[in-house]
Each structure stands twice: as structure tokens, then as C-alpha cells.
């Protein structure tokens, strides 16, 4: 997957439907194209289907109808293990392995890919530096870290094998406001440098506007808007407006600055 050029389509959802085993229709005909290097924000409230959409990309779910194409190939045609090892994955609370040290957590995918130990170790060093963590914590276990540190380790782990695509499911959702703000800024800077294709699930419009190059708004399993942050902020669509009103005064500028 690494050899593809930096332009073109990375991920494409073609008329994707997803029905849960309970029969509930979680996604209803979603069509969405994500270009290489783009940061696509999947925005919506709880139950809108945004996390399901994300999990269709790394084949944790398969569509009931339609197709999800990664690098032009349907996820059902990919070997799911190979597909997932080529996609970084960060979830809320990081999902770090509690019995793995920081170094083992970050080195997970390199190890799965069979990298030699010294190469993995060098990569772990590089990543700790990249996400702003002290080398001294490599032998610590997740429970010995702060929430912010854990989340940085989670990001480092997802970047370990340098995957071209990064899936992030509310990665900063459980952090306190100041740490969250810090991590968002750092991630923004990191992304400007690395130019990964990012799919980022959030219900926080402020986060979406800050980190996204495009925002896809989902409601009850349907895609109702796909706009750049500028277009989103000036949209007259009542459903987009409702989102803007909910976050009014809480966006880029501090409350009451105007």
C-alpha cells in the first residue's frame, strides 16, 4: 500500500448499507470519497453511524450492501489481516494493551509484520519523539501513564509501521479540556507534516473544524453534508446550522471575543 502516489482516491464508500445483526439499519446508502492526504471528519451525534462507517474501512465490519474500496480494492477482497496491518487505528481510551509496556505497545504492528528487533526499537524511539513523549517511559505500563500520555502512545502505535491511512475513533474524547486542546494542536502539526489519509470520528464540531480538511455530517445513517470547514461554517443548510448553533461561541474564538 505504501507505493501509491500522493494523489488519487484512498477510500471510497459506494452506496454503503449496513444492517446490524439486530436488523437495525445503521447506514443507509452512504457514498463518500476520501482523497489521499485528506483529513476526513465523520461528524454526527451518537448513533448516527459514524463509528460503523469507520470500522467498515478496516473490515471490522463488512457492508450489507454496496462496497468500501481501499486503494481501489473492495474490503471484501482484501485479506483482512493484511488490510488492517496497513491501516493505523486509534480508539478512545487508546485501547492500549495493559500487559504490554509502552515499547511493546508501540512496536506491536512492526512485530506482527516481522521487523527485526533493532529496527522496531529504533522506530519506537523515533515515534516517542514524534508524539512528544520522553524516552524514559518506554518500560512503563499503560496504567502508569496519564490519560494524555496514553493517548500519545495510542497515536504512536497507530503510526508505527508508517501506514498511509489512519483511522481515529474519538481519540481525544476522554481527555480533560486542556490536554485535549494540546493533543489536537500537536496532531494537527503532525498531520501537516506526515500528510496521511485520516478518517476521524468525532461529535465535537470544534475538533472537526480544527483537524479536518473536509467534514462529512451523518444523521441517522445517512450522509447529509460533505463540506470543507469554511463551507461548513457558512452553510445555510438547516441541519448544518443546527450544529453550528449548538457550538456557537465555542468554536475557534473564545466565548464573547467578538
Amino acid at each position: 500500500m505504501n507505493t501509491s502516489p500522493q494523489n488519487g482516491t484512498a477510500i471510497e464508500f459506494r452506496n454503503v448499507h449496513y444492517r446490524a445483526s439486530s436488523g437495525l439499519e445503521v447506514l443507509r446508502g452512504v457514498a463518500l470519497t476520501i482523497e489521499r492526504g485528506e483529513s476526513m471528519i465523520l461528524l454526527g451525534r451518537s448513533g448516527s453511524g459514524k463509528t460503523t462507517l469507520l470500522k467498515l474501512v478496516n473490515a471490522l465490519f463488512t457492508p450489507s450492501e454496496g462496497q468500501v474500496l481501499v486503494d481501489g480494492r473492495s474490503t471484501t477482497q482484501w485479506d483482512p489481516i493484511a488490510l488492517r496491518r496497513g491501516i493505523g487505528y486509534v480508539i478512545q481510551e487508546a485501547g492500549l494493551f495493559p500487559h504490554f509496556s509502552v515499547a511493546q505497545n508501540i512496536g506491536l504492528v512492526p512485530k506482527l509484520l516481522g521487523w527485526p528487533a533493532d529496527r522496531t526499537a529504533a522506530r519506537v524511539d523515533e515515534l516517542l519523539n514524534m508524539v512528544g513523549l520522553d524516552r524514559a517511559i518506554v518500560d512503563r505500563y499503560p496504567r502508569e501513564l496519564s490519560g494524555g500520555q496514553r493517548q500519545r502512545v495510542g497515536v504512536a502505535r497507530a503510526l508505527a509501521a508508517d501506514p498511509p491511512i489512519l483511522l481515529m475513533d474519538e481519540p481525544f474524547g476522554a481527555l480533560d479540556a486542556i490536554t485535549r486542546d494540546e493533543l489536537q494542536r500537536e496532531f494537527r502539526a503532525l498531520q501537516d507534516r506526515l500528510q496521511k489519509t485520516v478518517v476521524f470520528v468525532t461529535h465535537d464540531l470544534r475538533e472537526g473544524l480544527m483537524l479536518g480538511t473536509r467534514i462529512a455530517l451523518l444523521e441517522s445513517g445517512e450522509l447529509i453534508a460533505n463540506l470543507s470547514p469554511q463551507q461548513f461554517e457558512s452553510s445555510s443548510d438547516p441541519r448544518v446550522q443546527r450544529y453550528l448553533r449548538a457550538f456557537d461561541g465555542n468554536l475557534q474564538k473564545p466565548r464573547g471575543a467578538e
Partner: protein
Amino acid sequence: MNLVQFLRDNQAQMLELTLEHLGMVGISMLIAVLIGIPLGILISRHPAWNKPVLGSANVIQTVPSLALFGMLLPVPWIGARAERLAILALTLYALLPLIRNTYAGIKGVDPAVVEAGRGMGMTDRQVLWQLELPLALGVILAGVRVATVISVGLATIAAAVGAGGLGEFIFRGLASVNNQLILAGAIPAALLALLADVSLGWIEKRLTRRTATAAVAVG
């Protein structure tokens, strides 16, 4: 004749019966672990097997121990030798805590951890060996500990079918209304059970130091 003197006079037999006792418990626990833990893993993977497997283990557990030894007596090959019979009975009794704890331990692993593992491309086998089993280890070992302690106690009954062990003293004492003899079997058996409990508890703690607070850290 007091107890101390009795033990002094019968040192050799005492040692022999204790070793027999430990042998029965050790072999039956080994077999039970080799069967029970895989069964626990199996039912965590295939929910349809859950009821029949746990149900059967439960039923075995409800059979009174003396009756179980008696019921196995007519079974060919097994019934022919008292030690085989005792080992089979003890194995059957140990299954329930092992299966149940393995199942509960795996089900108790934080789903976010398993999902992160799968999402990053771990195979089912890697998820089991690198995530689920290590994180369930504390609960599984607790099951081994419970089963072992029960087994040490139950093994005294094996003497009723002639399999030896510390029950030998107890049954002889009961038959001859000799309290000293009963205590000569009961006290070492109780001490063995305590020893098993403490040493397995220590191993459990050592092996799970890291993951003991795992649920707190991730949840």
C-alpha cells in the same frame, strides 16, 4: 497413645500416604487443566456450546463424591484399578471451576483491547494467546486454585475405594472409633489444602502483578 507419638511411630506410612495423596491430586489436576481450559476457550468462541458444556460440568459437581466414586466402579479399565478411578473422579470434579473461570476470564477482558488488537491486524490466534489468555490469567489461576483445594479435600474419599491417600487413616479411624487415627489423616490433609491455597495464591499474584489493575487503567 497420643497423636504425636502415633505419627512418630508411623512416619514411613504417613509419608507414603501423603505422597499418594499429592500424586492423585497432581495428576488429576494436570488432566483437568488440559481439558478444562481448552473447553473454557471453546465456549468463549462458540456460544452454542456454552450451555451443554457448563451444564454437564455442573451436573457432575452435584453428584455426591462418595456416589461418584461408586458409580465409576463398574466402568471397564477405570474401575479395575482404584487409583485410576480416583484420578478420574477428581478430574471430573475439578472441571467446573476451570471451565467456568477460563470462560469468565476471557469474557472479562476489556472489549476495547480486543478490538484494538483485531483492528491492527492480529489474527484470532494472536488475539487469544497475546491478549485474552494473558489478561484472563488471574481469573483462570483462581479457578485452578479453587479446584486444587477442593481436590485435596475430596481425595481423602478415594481411600473408600482403596486408592490410598490420607483418607486411609481417616477411614481406618472411623472403623475402629479411634480419634487419633482420624486426626492423623485429617490434619495433614487440611494442611496440604492450606499449603496448596497459599502457594497457588502466591503464584497467581506474582504472575498477574501487571494486569491486576488493568481493568481500572483501560476502563
